[in-house]
């Protein structure tokens, strides 16, 4: 136990896996017990195996996969919003980080939104943009971009000044210092901001799809809720968590591939 309260102690891979799997199994066990013993009624908490049944029903039923179609729609919306977040948010964040005047002008417009109730914007977006796809994508975009922009700005500002001075001394113009030295040095942290933005969008996808969605995982959950099919609601939530986790793992892997020097430092 001497190594228990030691954050620097190495943990071998197998032990880590067993601890992780163990706690998931423990959760499943408690869940099963609660439903089997009738401590919580099945109308409030479906049994784990009922959720598995619902998952397989949603995956393949009557020659059609509702789950697959819904996933494609949700992923599609997320990707469109994600591309917009990257294409608009990163340049704004870079300008704010690189030019104190731009930062002074824009930060009162951007920073407060990090703690703003973005969900409360939904009715306003419906009023402005209607109930179609534009509204859903705009909602995902706003939800994620208000996190991304300040993170990108901070990434730029975190680059040590010495790299700027060094490039300047070698004859770089101020703009060359930014795009040849500061931005490349900030890229790993900008990648972190993109990863956070996608995580945020996964948490907002159900909200975006609550309003008049004919397709998508949020609609699938919403629809199941209407018929009190709690097993399907749980199945939908589990699928979203799994997709968000897969997105996260993939992007972290990609970041390590693109910027291997960051971990070497």
């Amino acid at each position, binding site marked *: 136990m001497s190594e228990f309260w030691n954050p620097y102690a190495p943990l071998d891979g197998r032990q880590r896996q067993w601890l992780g799997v163990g706690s998931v199994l423990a959760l499943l066990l408690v869940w099963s017990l609660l439903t089997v013993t009738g401590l919580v009624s099945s109308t409030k908490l479906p049994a784990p195996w009922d959720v598995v049944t619902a998952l397989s029903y949603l995956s393949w039923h009557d020659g059609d996969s509702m789950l697959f179609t819904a996933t494609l729609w949700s992923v599609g919306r997320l990707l469109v919003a994600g591309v917009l977040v990257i294409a608009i948010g990163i340049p704004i964040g870079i300008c704010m980080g690189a030019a104190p005047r731009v930062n002074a002008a824009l930060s009162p417009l951007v920073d407060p939104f990090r703690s703003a109730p973005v969900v409360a914007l939904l009715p306003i977006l419906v009023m402005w943009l209607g109930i179609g796809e534009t509204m859903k994508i705009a909602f995902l975009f706003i939800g994620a971009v208000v996190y991304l922009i300040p993170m990108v700005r901070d990434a730029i500002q975190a680059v*040590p*000044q*010495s*790299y700027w*001075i*060094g*490039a*300047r*001394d*070698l*004859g*770089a*113009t101020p703009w*060359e210092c930014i795009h*040849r*030295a500061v931005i*490349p*040095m900030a*890229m790993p942290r900008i990648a972190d901001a993109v990863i956070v933005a996608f995580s945020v969008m996964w948490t907002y996808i159900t909200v975006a799809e609550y309003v008049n969605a004919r397709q998508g995982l949020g609609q699938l959950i919403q629809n199941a809720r209407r018929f009190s099919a709690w097993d399907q609601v749980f199945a939908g939530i589990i699928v979203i968590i799994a997709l968000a986790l897969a997105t996260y793992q993939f992007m972290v892997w990609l970041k390590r591939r693109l*910027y291997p*020097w*960051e971990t*070497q*430092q």
Partner: protein
Amino acid sequence: MNVAAKPAGISAAAARPLSVVVKDIVQEYPAPGGSVTRVIDQVSLSFDQPGISMLLGPSGCGKSTLLHMLGGVRPMGIDTPTAGKVLIDGVECIGPHDDAVMVFQRYANRPDLTVFDNVAFPFRLNLWKARVPEAEWRQRVADILKAVGLADKLKLRPAQLSGGQNQRVALARALVLRPRILLMDEPFGALDAQTREEMQQLLIELYQSWPCLVVFVTHDVTEALVLGDRVIVLSAQPARVADDFVISEARPRSATWQRSREAQALEERILTQLHQASPGRGQVRVTV
């Protein structure tokens, strides 16, 4: 050192005539309580030929600030100098100068670039891209990397190199531009004693192939005696020129010379000046 042993590729072309004048430089920084602290007080110096000039002084005496002014770099965004001016070839130097390149103590190499790309970095900039054709700079980069002994490490990143190797990269990046003025800000200060000696040796070799004006900031008296054609001693804050003399002994300077009466007298002279300059402060290092 004979001609055959010169590092390949750096041609021995004599640098063009040169004039660097530091004229009545004063530097003040705002201090707490609304007053100002004078860091540099009326410093005047002039350099009119290639050579290694050692700028020696106690820690925090403003020698780095002075060096930054020679390079036209303004690290803190504060106006430098407060008064006085730096003239290069008779023209007042107000921004980074194409002929002056700096080598910093640390944080100079880009961790995201390979050794080759670190040295080739200046040629990605419009200024040098327009002046040096690609075939030529590729050749220059290859040659200088050979000269500093990193020809087999082109693809490594700074994190995979030792401290000494990293400073070799920094030296190569500066010299690949063939500057007339090389400004070195305690470049070997963070290295261990043995590596520091190797780097001093390397600098002497590189200087012989490319004789330019080297202004070398250090607080190491031995380093000043091993490298300097000229030694300028600055006093403690505010910095004034306390002493300025020439060492005519040819480089490389043998251990015998370093123990000679002449060398010891020079060391004594520098130490006396420094102790007068900073009573009770022991930030001056003497190795060997």
